[in-house]
């Protein structure tokens, strides 16, 4: 039984993430209608929204601390929100502003917040190896922090994912891999990309525990993640989790979804994990008024983050040249010590 306070926190994360995506959708489409022009409007670039994925992120991140590392894929907003990434600066980054998390150099697929050890990679499954590295660092330093790599089900055939399972397993690293199964890899349904319906079975090939949460039920994810994160934190190695989520929107904004049967879109919209959690809140004795208040507060926070972000300055074009390196190009020294070397230095060869 999940504590009522945890249920409230999860509900807040989920309604924040859902409303965030809905509001970004509105902002993104500004200037892009009636004809869709990806280079118009206030939000630059592609936008992959995660409405329908919220249960997975919040159920897992409830068990994480700021010093635990999370890597997220190209669809990262709900995970960033659940991990506690600074919402104002994240939003400013998505709008490409100077005060964004990355000063406008990363964008929505490349969000980094070292304060809470959150990072993204826009390349499918390639966030897994760095998560393994964070786990390796924790083990080497004898710390009990853990790392979690989130990926989509389309990533389960990628070498980076499978290699990471192997390295985490053979080195007994504190890593949890979370597959968010939304049934679709852009236009490819899962049964056309793998014969294994339950991708958590991939764990068996690496002698690692694997578990699938078959519905996007936040409390079921919470329970499964509690065990997986606990196992990692206690030094008992990695776990693979797969969580069924649903994709309520297109792969990216502008996706016509012509490949997707209408019944599938309708079914996704009907199985709403947020309403499911609201019922659990009521069952736990939380009044409707309180639930509404949680929702309103979350909406206010999102609206205010978007308002703040839109008010931020555009970056100075000259800033494009900075931040390739953090240190001087020459390294830790600019001068070379002179040594007196004996004789003909070309008399070399082998030992």
């Amino acid at each position: 039984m999940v504590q009522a306070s945890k249920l409230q926190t999860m509900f807040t994360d989920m309604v924040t993430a859902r409303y965030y995506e809905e509001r970004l959708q509105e902002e993104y489409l500004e200037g892009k209608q009636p004809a869709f022009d990806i280079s118009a409007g206030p939000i630059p670039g592609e936008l992959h929204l995660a409405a329908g994925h919220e249960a997975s992120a919040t159920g897992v991140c409830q068990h994480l601390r700021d010093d635990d590392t999370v890597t997220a894929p190209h669809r990262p907003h709900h995970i960033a929100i659940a991990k506690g990434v600074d919402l104002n600066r994240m939003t400013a980054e998505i709008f490409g502003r100077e005060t964004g998390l990355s000063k406008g150099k990363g964008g929505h697929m490349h969000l980094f917040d070292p304060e809470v050890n959150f990072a993204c990679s826009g390349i499918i499954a390639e966030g897994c190896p760095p998560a393994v590295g964070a786990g390796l660092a924790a083990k080497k330093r004898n710390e009990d922090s853990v790392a979690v790599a989130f990926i989509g089900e389309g990533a389960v055939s990628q070498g980076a994912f499978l290699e990471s399972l192997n390295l985490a397993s053979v080195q007994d690293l504190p890593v949890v891999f979370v597959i968010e199964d939304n049934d679709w890899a852009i236009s490819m349904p899962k049964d056309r990309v793998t014969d294994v319906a339950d991708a958590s079975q991939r764990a068996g090939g690496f002698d690692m525990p694997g578990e699938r949460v078959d519905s996007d039920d936040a409390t079921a994810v919470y329970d499964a993640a509690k065990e997986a994160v606990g196992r990692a934190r206690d030094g008992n190695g990695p776990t693979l989790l797969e969580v069924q989520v649903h994709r309520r929107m297109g792969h990216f904004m502008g996706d016509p979804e012509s490949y997707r049967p209408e019944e599938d879109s309708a079914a996704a919209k009907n199985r709403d994990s947020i309403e499911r959690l609201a019922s659990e809140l009521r069952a736990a004795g939380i009044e409707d008024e309180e639930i509404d208040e949680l929702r309103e507060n979350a909406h206010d926070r999102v609206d205010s983050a978007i308002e703040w972000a839109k008010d931020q300055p555009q970056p100075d074009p000259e800033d494009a040249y900075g931040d390739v390196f953090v240190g001087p190009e020459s390294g830790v020294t600019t001068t070379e010590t002179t040594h007196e070397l004996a004789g003909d230095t070309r008399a070399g060869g082998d030992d």
Partner: protein
Amino acid sequence: MAQQDSAQAIDRELTMSRAMVEAIADEMRADEEVFYMGEDVADYGGIFDSTQGLLEEFGHDRIMDVPISETAYIGAAVGAAQAGMRPIAELMFVDFFGVGMDQIYNQMAKNTYMSGASVNVPMVLTTAVGGTYNDAAQHSQTLYGTFAHLPGMKVVVPSTAYDAKGLMHNAIRDDDPVVYMFHKRLMGIGWMPAPDGPKTPVPEEEYTIPFGSADVKREGEDVTVVTLGLHVHRAIEAAEDLAEDGIDAEVVDLRTLVPLDTETILESVAKTGRLVVVDEDYRSYGVTSEIVARVAEEDLASLEAVSRLAVPDVPIPYARPLENEVIPATEDIKDAVRSIGS
């Protein structure tokens, strides 16, 4: 570097591999956060002696053999570096970059920039490069230009033991990613005899050589030969032969491709007016064209004649006469210098 005989002169000679390893060991003693991982780097000691002897002192926790899984362990180095450690990851042959390149150029090299420098990646990627021992197209490349082309990583190519040690110290202490490319033929491996040149006196103390500082390995007045790695030694040999014919060639060893010391090249060309660029990478879109372009942009007036010598645009062949044909030899350098007159 000063080269002279004196009572205090350093006369302890090391192979390039021993000099590299000495720097790694010093850094590992000084900083517990430094560790080395790669294929066959622990019990074997590195196929090309890049880690020889380190296991005995530091044990398997810090000299880590890993699965044949470049994406996973190079990416793990990226993750550990972002967590503040100082990993050194070894790619056994640079030719294997294809199986792990996303972690190298999309993660290691870009995460700093994409984060607006809120994240940094203090790691070294060591890798063996080069041919001349008939290992054919998948085990003989240098790929200098490929790595130097992609922004976000420094690219270091030592040609002597002295340089190898100072550059390695600087690489490990750097807060940014460094690709350290060592030429197999220069390491001083028993089964792959090195030419004269890479084995040099090496101070026992630690020292750092800055990146972006080319070294004039031979001074000359008539022609500038710009090169790196193995071909520094071929160029010096060519220059000695040319001197007998009255042609005085200057040999500039780039030492690092990123950052590139354009200034030293320009100074030399201003003096000689003639430029030959020699490289063991492919000819087109590569190091040789970049050097020539920079000189042309900055000081076209000084440039009386130019020639470049690189691997023609074919994969490296296997049979000895075929490989010898495509990798620039000492004779080829002499011909190139003569072809642009003096």
